C-alpha cells in the first residue's frame, strides 16, 4: 500500500510492517478521533486488507473505511487521518509565501522601524474604512497576529479580539442570582410537568392498553390450567422527556444569559434528565458543576468557564462540536433542545445550519430563546437566525420565571 511508495516521504508514524502500521493507525483513530475500535475491529481491518489486497490504494482505503467508520461523520475524519498517517505532508513552503489569513490593517502614520513591531506613540486614530475587517475573513478560522495582543490596540480591536480570541474571554466565574430563585424553581417544575412529547413508539405491558398481548395471556393461562382468566395488554408508554440547554454566554448575551443560567440551574436541580452546556468561543458541559452547586453550597458560583463564557460568539462552530462530541450521549427522540442565544453568529452559517439540522434530526425539537425577540418589531433577519429558522420548533424569548414556565406551550 501507500507506505511502501517511494514517492512519499517516510513518516515517523510508519513502523515496520503492515499489522504494526494498522495498529498504530487504529490507535490514532481511537485516541485522536474517538473512533470506537476494539480489538475485533482491528482484526477485521486486517482481514479486510487481506481480502482486497494492498496493491490498489483506493480499494485498501475503501476497505479500511468500511470497517473503521460507523457513521457519516466518521468518514471525513477517517479520510484526513488516513492521508495524514500514510501520506504525511512535506514540510511545506515558507509561511511568508502564503497569503495572509487576515487583510492587513494598515493605519495612517503607522511607522515601524526596520526591526518591525514598534508602533509610533503619536499615531493618528485609524480611519473607519481602513479599520474594518473584511467580512469574508470573519469566521472561526481567523487567526491573530501577535500585534493583536497589544494592550494599546484600538477599542475596535478589542471587540474583534473578544470575538475571536480564546485568551480574551471573560474569565470571571458566572454567578447564579439568588434573587427570584424560588419562582424560577417553580417555573422549572412547571416546565417539566407540562412538557408532553406524546407517547413512545415502544410497546410495553400496561394495565390498560390498546393491544391484546396473546403471548403473555397464554403464558399466564398455564397457571390456571389453560383458561385465560387474566388478559394481558400492551400499550405505548408516555415519553419521558429529556432537556438539553445550550446557553450562549458571549458578551453580547451576558445580560440575558443570567436568567437563562438561573433557569438551567433550577432545571438541573429538579430533574436528572437535564444537560446544560455553555458556549462562547468554546463549548463546555456545565451539568456536573450545576449539580454540585445544589449540594449545600452557600454561594451559587460556577467555576471560571474561561472561553465558554464572556467571550466572542461562535454559535455554529460550538453547536457542531456539541453534535460531534455530545449528541450521541444526550440527544434522543425524547430530548427537547433549548438554545438561548441572540443568533448573532460571526461564523459560517453553513456550519450552523448543519449542526441544527443534525440536532433537529436526533431530538424532539429545538426551541430557540432569543432575547431580541422580546422587541415587538423584531424580525429574524440576522444571518445566523435566518440559517437557524428552518430547523426550529419555536423562536421565542423568556426572561422571567413566568415566561420560562410556559415554554412547553410554544411547541408545535
Amino acid at each position: 500500500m501507500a507506505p511502501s511508495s517511494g514517492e512519499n516521504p517516510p513518516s515517523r508514524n510508519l513502523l515496520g510492517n503492515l499489522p504494526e502500521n494498522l495498529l498504530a493507525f487504529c490507535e490514532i483513530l481511537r485516541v485522536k478521533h474517538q473512533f470506537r475500535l476494539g480489538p475485533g475491529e482491528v482484526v477485521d481491518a486486517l482481514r479486510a486488507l487481506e481480502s482486497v489486497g494492498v496493491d490498489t490504494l483506493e480499494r485498501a482505503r475503501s476497505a479500511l473505511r468500511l470497517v473503521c467508520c460507523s457513521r457519516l461523520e466518521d468518514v471525513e475524519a477517517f479520510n484526513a487521518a488516513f492521508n495524514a498517517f500514510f501520506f504525511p505532508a512535506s514540510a511545506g513552503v515558507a509561511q511568508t509565501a502564503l497569503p495572509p489569513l487576515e487583510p492587513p490593517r494598515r493605519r495612517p502614520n503607522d511607522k515601524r522601524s526596520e526591526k518591525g513591531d514598534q508602533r509610533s506613540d503619536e499615531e493618528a486614530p485609524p480611519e473607519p474604512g481602513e479599520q474594518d475587517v473584511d467580512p469574508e475573513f470573519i469566521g472561526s478560522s481567523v487567526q491573530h497576529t501577535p500585534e493583536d495582543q497589544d494592550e494599546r490596540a484600538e477599542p475596535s480591536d478589542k471587540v474583534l479580539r473578544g470575538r475571536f480570541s480564546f485568551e480574551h474571554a471573560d474569565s470571571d466565574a458566572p454567578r447564579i442570582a439568588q434573587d427570584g430563585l424560588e419562582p424560577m424553581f417553580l417555573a422549572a417544575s412547571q416546565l417539566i410537568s407540562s412538557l408532553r412529547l406524546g407517547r413512545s413508539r415502544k410497546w410495553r405491558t400496561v394495565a390498560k392498553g390498546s393491544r391484546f398481548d396473546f403471548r403473555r395471556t397464554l403464558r399466564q393461562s398455564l397457571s390456571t390450567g389453560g383458561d385465560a382468566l387474566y388478559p394481558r395488554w400492551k400499550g405505548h408508554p408516555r415519553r419521558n422527556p429529556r432537556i438539553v440547554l445550550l446557553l450562549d454566554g458571549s458578551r453580547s448575551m451576558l445580560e440575558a444569559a443570567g436568567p437563562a443560567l438561573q433557569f438551567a440551574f433550577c432545571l438541573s436541580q429538579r430533574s436528572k434528565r437535564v444537560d446544560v452546556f455553555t458556549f462562547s468561543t468554546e463549548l463546555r458541559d456545565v451539568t456536573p458543576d450545576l449539580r454540585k452547586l445544589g449540594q449545600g453550597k452557600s454561594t451559587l458560583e460556577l467555576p471560571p468557564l474561561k472561553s465558554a463564557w464572556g467571550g466572542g460568539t461562535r454559535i455554529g462552530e460550538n453547536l457542531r462540536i456539541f453534535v460531534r462530541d455530545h449528541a450521541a450521549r444526550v440527544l434522543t427522540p425524547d430530548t427537547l433542545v433549548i438554545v438561548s442565544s441572540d443568533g448573532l453568529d460571526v461564523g459560517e452559517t453553513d456550519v450552523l445550519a448543519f449542526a441544527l439540522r443534525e440536532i433537529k434530526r436526533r431530538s424532539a425539537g429545538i426551541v430557540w430563546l432569543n432575547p431580541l425577540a422580546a422587541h415587538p418589531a423584531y424580525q429574524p433577519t440576522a444571518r445566523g437566525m435566518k440559517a437557524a429558522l428552518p430547523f426550529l420548533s419555536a423562536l421565542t424569548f423568556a426572561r422571567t420565571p413566568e415566561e420560562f414556565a410556559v415554554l412547553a406551550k410554544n411547541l408545535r
Partner: protein
Amino acid sequence: MNSDLRARFAARGYITSDEFAVALELVMALEKPLLIEGPAGVGKTESAKVLADALGTRLIRLQCYEGLDASSALYEWNYPKQMLRIRLTDGDSSTLEDREAQIFSEAFLLKRPLLEALTQESAPVLLIDEVDRADEAFEAFLLELLAEFQITVPELGTIRAKVRPYVILTSNRSRELSDALRRRCLYLWQSYPTAQQELQILQARLPDLSSRLAEQITRVMAALRQMPFHKVPGIAETLDWALALMHLHHENLDAATVIQTRGCILKAREDWSLLEGNLTKLEAVWNDKIGERSLKGEMDFGIGKVTVR
C-alpha cells in the same frame, strides 16, 4: 470475484461504485453485515435485491416499522395450535412441566424473517430494511443475531445459523442507530450518484432512451439536487421521469414538458413552486450543448452561493 460480481450487477442494471464493490466483497469475505445509510431513493434496498439475484439465492426481507417487535421479526408461537394441544391433553396424567415442554417445542414455532434466514440450507440475502424506523428495543434483539448469527428462544434455547446469511441493513437516518449495532456492521454511506454514474444507470436500465435526453435528464437532476427541496429526488425518480418521457415520446426537454411531468420527480406542492421559480435557470442547464461545458455542482438559483464562473 469482485469484477465478476460487478459485472453481474451491471448486467442487472445496477451500476456499482468502487467502494460499493469493495463492500460487497467484504460482506462475503468477513461474513459481516453491511449497514448502508443514505438519502431515500439512492438504491439501498435495490442493492440487496440485485445481490440476491446475482448470487442466485433467496432474498428474505424484513421491513422495519414503529412498534416492530420480536414476535413479528424473529418468531411467534402458534397460539391456536398450543391451545388445541392443551385442550386435547387435558385429561393426561402428564405433569405441568411435560405439557409445557410439548407446547413450546419447534413444532409450535412460527418462523418470521430473521429465524427464516437462519434456518436456510444455502446462504440467503437478508435485507433488514429501514432499520431506523424500528424501536431501540428491537435493535437490541438484532445484536445477538448480527454478531453471532444465532438467536435465543427462551423456551427452546439457542438456534444457530446453518449457513451465515448475507445481511444488508438500510437506514435513512431518521434517527440515530446505536453504537452497538453500528460496531457489528461494515458501514457504507451511499449518496446521490454523480451525473456520469446516473447517465450510466439510465443507459443500463433504459437502453432505448435517447442519449441526448438521458444527458439532459442527468444534468437537470444534478442541478435539482442542489436546490432546497423538501424531498430531493433520487435515482428512482430519475428512472420514473425518464420512463415517463419515453412513454410521452419526448426527445428533448422543454419548459412545458418539465411542468407536465414534474410529478414524477417532485412530490410536494412547495417543491413544485420552487421548480417553477427556477425554470428559466434550469432551461439553461438542459439547453447546454452536450460536452460543451461540464455541469457545475454549485449553481446560483438565488438561494445559495454563486460559484459558477
